[in-house]
């Protein structure tokens, strides 16, 4: 049995991920929601251990807008790449960047130490391409060395293109202005989600991952955008107990 067949039984195919994303884009669409579902698809499709979507703001700084793992340490691995790392290189150059063994790679000293400490060995960054410029990168990390083959490269770039499309799906092609507005809004939305994670984590005595999952599951179950749920949490309009209760009903 080929590797792909073995995978088909358990995990979504690239095609079904694309179809799902496209369906989302023609409905009441929100980029934060798309990005967070893309990172979960990326984990499955690429058999990866951590995935993050980063976009650059109008001040040319990279920000994490979605991550497969919501604990502080993993998020910070993505966050520190506003200074150095495969994501930053990828975004600057517009090229896909890979490292098959971070333990012997001599690029990005500080980034490399942090990720190797957390147990990651391979890394890939695929550019979020948009006509003549790049708006960010999709970052993939694996715990094993040599995790990257042609198949991973193609799938990662396809997912990155999908993310870039999603970010611009509401804009008229020539309207760079709209894109700048959209990007800044998305980055700010992510900060709101972090603040809400903190509030829920404290309220429900749980970790950041659990706080995020609760918000995500609650949003899905009530067909709400993640950002709207986060704002209701911060506005103290909904509590952990109420969110949990509505999920077990």
């Amino acid at each position, binding site marked *: 049995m080929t590797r792909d067949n073995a995978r088909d039984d358990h995990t979504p195919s690239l095609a079904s991920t694309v179809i799902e994303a496209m369906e989302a884009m023609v409905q009441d669409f929100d980029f934060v929601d798309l990005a967070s579902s893309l990172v979960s698809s990326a984990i499955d499709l690429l058999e990866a251990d951590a995935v993050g979507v980063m976009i650059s703001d109008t001040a040319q*700084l990279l920000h*994490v807008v979605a991550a497969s793992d919501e604990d*502080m340490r993993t998020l910070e691995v993505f966050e520190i790449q506003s200074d150095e790392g495969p994501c930053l290189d990828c975004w600057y150059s517009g090229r896909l960047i890979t490292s098959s063994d971070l333990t012997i790679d001599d690029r990005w000293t500080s980034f490399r130490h942090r990720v190797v400490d957390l147990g990651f060995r391979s890394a890939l960054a695929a550019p979020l391409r948009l006509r003549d410029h790049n708006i960010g990168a999709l970052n993939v990390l694996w715990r094993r060395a040599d995790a990257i083959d042609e198949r991973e490269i193609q799938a990662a770039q396809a997912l990155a293109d999908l993310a870039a499309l999603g970010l611009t799906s509401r804009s008229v092609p020539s309207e760079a*202005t709209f894109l700048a507005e959209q990007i800044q*809004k998305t980055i*700010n939305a992510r900060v709101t989600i972090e603040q809400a994670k*903190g509030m829920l984590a404290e309220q429900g005595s749980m970790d950041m991952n659990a706080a995020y999952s609760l918000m995500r599951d609650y949003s899905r179950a009530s067909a709400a955008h993640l950002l709207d749920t986060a704002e209701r949490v911060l506005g103290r309009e909904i509590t952990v107990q109420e969110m949990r209760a509505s999920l077990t009903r």
Partner: protein
Amino acid sequence: METSRRSAILQKAVVTPGTSIAHRLCTLSLDFALDGAAILLAGAGSPSGIATSSGSLGQDIAELELKFGEGPGHQALSNRGPVLADQLLTGACEEWPVFASEARERTVGAIFAFPLCLGSICVGVLEVCRCVPGKLTVTHLTDLSLLASLATSALLLMQAGLDDRDTLDLLESGDPVQIRVHQATGMVAQQTSLSLPDSLALIRSYALTHELSLGNVAEQVVTRRIRMDRP
């Protein structure tokens, strides 16, 4: 690159005359081929007062926002994203028709508003305009965004009770607001029942009192080594 640009803007702000950091940043924004700039304060999610203004049109656009309760500043705060209206003379401006027509009468051709927000903490909006319509250059857009982010930090620090000198020192030290700071802000808001801006101010003042970085205190909050509801 961005870090050096940020400090370049800050250095310029220091030598720009003004009564406060906010005023200096506001005046400095006129360097980007603009005819007016204002910083409005946010109350309950929309512009509620004028912090400062510069240039011939700065006070005018700020007053229009408050008088009519609409405008790019209102829109930027409700979107929590910038509003870049580069064609005021020909564009529809559906969201704020009254503001647009009043602004046109005052010869405003393009207007840009940058919300001063950190997630759901919104302290104000930086609004700039010029008579000649047209897009901002990429460089000006970048610099104005950096300026808006500096103004956000400055207003937050001043709300936390810091004076001009200390605010400037902290801005110069860079002290980046990281993901863990946002998480810690939410946690402290839950512990204390304070608002988010007040919770951030509390973390900030704890850091200053204990001579720690903002990031360090935030990490201790997130990893539950310190709480803010007990002295």
